[in-house]
């Protein structure tokens, strides 16, 4: 049996499937608890439903890109391991680079199916898992303390009667995050001449402006649920068209 067949064998699917099922069950459990708690504290069911539907539609497109990541890695690591790694904690850029580092550490010239052995495969799987768990470790030990400490100044601020700084800080942090990415796309264009990310960014932003116009000025509130996914689709379609030109 070839190494690729061993990596794609039924037991590998079963091992990875069990872990994915556990994480799926945990997500569903948290969702049901949050829904019930929302109703118990008097939240409107429509609001709860909108939170869920908007998140599902928002996630559909990026999920397909993650699926593409599974396809991209399946040639060198089989299907089950990339399926697991990209469903639980992972992100494509992390998994690809870590798998390559681990492959080199075990003596391969890189992440290469022609040199892959079962030992290299299990070692790569261990490095990928051990390298990514630290966010979970920190969350286990410090989440509760960190959050309760953060809530204190927020309460003090709101008790003065003003708008909480929490809202401003979250929006500002997100603006900072988006600004860093936008800056990187401008830098990519000036240094390599690759204008594609900027075109996609501009088309996606323009599509978002159209969605916002119809939602805010024309009262089409239902569009909010699809605005981000729809804008992304427009941006991605622009990439396909720009590549054809």
């Amino acid at each position, binding site marked *: 049996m070839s190494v690729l067949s061993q990596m794609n064998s039924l037991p590998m699917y079963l091992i990875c499937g069990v872990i994915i099922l556990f994480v799926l069950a945990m997500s569903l459990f948290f969702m049901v608890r949050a829904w019930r*708690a929302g109703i118990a504290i008097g939240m409107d069911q429509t609001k709860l439903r909108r939170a869920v539907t908007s998140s*599902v539609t928002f996630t559909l497109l990026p999920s397909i890109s993650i699926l593409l990541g599974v396809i991209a890695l399946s040639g060198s690591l089989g299907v089950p391991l990339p399926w697991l790694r990209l469903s639980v904690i992972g992100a494509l850029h992390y998994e690809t680079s870590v798998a390559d580092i681990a492959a080199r550490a075990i003596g391969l010239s890189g992440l290469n199916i022609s040199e892959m052995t079962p030992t290299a495969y299990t070692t790569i799987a261990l490095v990928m898992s051990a*390298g990514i768990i630290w966010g979970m470790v920190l969350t286990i030990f410090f989440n509760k303390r960190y959050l309760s400490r953060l809530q204190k100044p927020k309460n003090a601020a709101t008790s003065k009667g003003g708008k909480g700084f929490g809202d401003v800080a979250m929006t*500002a*942090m997100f603006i900072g995050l988006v600004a860093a990415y936008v800056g990187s796309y401008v*830098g990519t264009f000036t240094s390599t001449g690759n204008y594609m990310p900027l075109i996609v960014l501009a088309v*996606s*932003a323009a599509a978002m402006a159209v969605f916002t116009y119809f939602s805010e000025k024309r009262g089409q509130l239902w569009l909010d649920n699809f605005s981000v996914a729809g804008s992304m*689709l427009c941006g991605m379609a622009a990439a*396909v068209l720009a590549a054809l030109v």
Partner: protein
Amino acid sequence: MDKKTFFEQYNQRTHTYGRAGLIIGIILMLGCPFVMGLILGAMPDLGAFWKGFAQVALVYIPSCAVEFLIYTPMLGAGGSYLAFITGNLINMKIPCMMNAKGITDAEAGSPESEIVSTLSIAASAVTTTVVIALGVLLLIPLQPILSSPVLAPAFDNVVPALFGALAYQYFRKGIKIVAIPLMVMTVLCVAMPSLIGSVGFLIIPSGAMAIGIGYVLWKRDIKKEVTE
């Protein structure tokens, strides 16, 4: 039971369940390569593991710590337990949760915000898991379509597509905060293209700048409200 007591108990249990879930998750993930090794008759090479892990840890442990410090306050208790086990924080969970909070007008730090955040991250995680699982089932017939060279530019640009939509939403919300971080990040990336690959780290100074400006503006607004 009043609303406040109920919510405190809910939050307390969220921490208990969250911790238990993450501990089981870590055990499963670290155990998985060894179970695979038992079945394949090829246990992981621990010498090579430590060598590879040392390199990975240098880059990814600080990055995990930064992610924990920055994103935990945004995600809340339930959201962070789920987000840190399901992954794809920057490119999916955080924008998804912010979008849900925006749509439902949930104020940061409020019980509503905690509920919306947990619902959003959980719905996102379930969707991703289902899409990937279906995709894996259909992998063979789908592969030629999804990996066709015609569609490749679309999937290569998912992240700029996401940030285009979010840039419009968030730049509009905080127009006074945007200018300086955007200008500084653009000048930095144009002047030093080597920084482009480290955009994950650029988020830290960019976010710090935006929060600093946000704080100054917030203080000014509070002062105005008091004098009025």
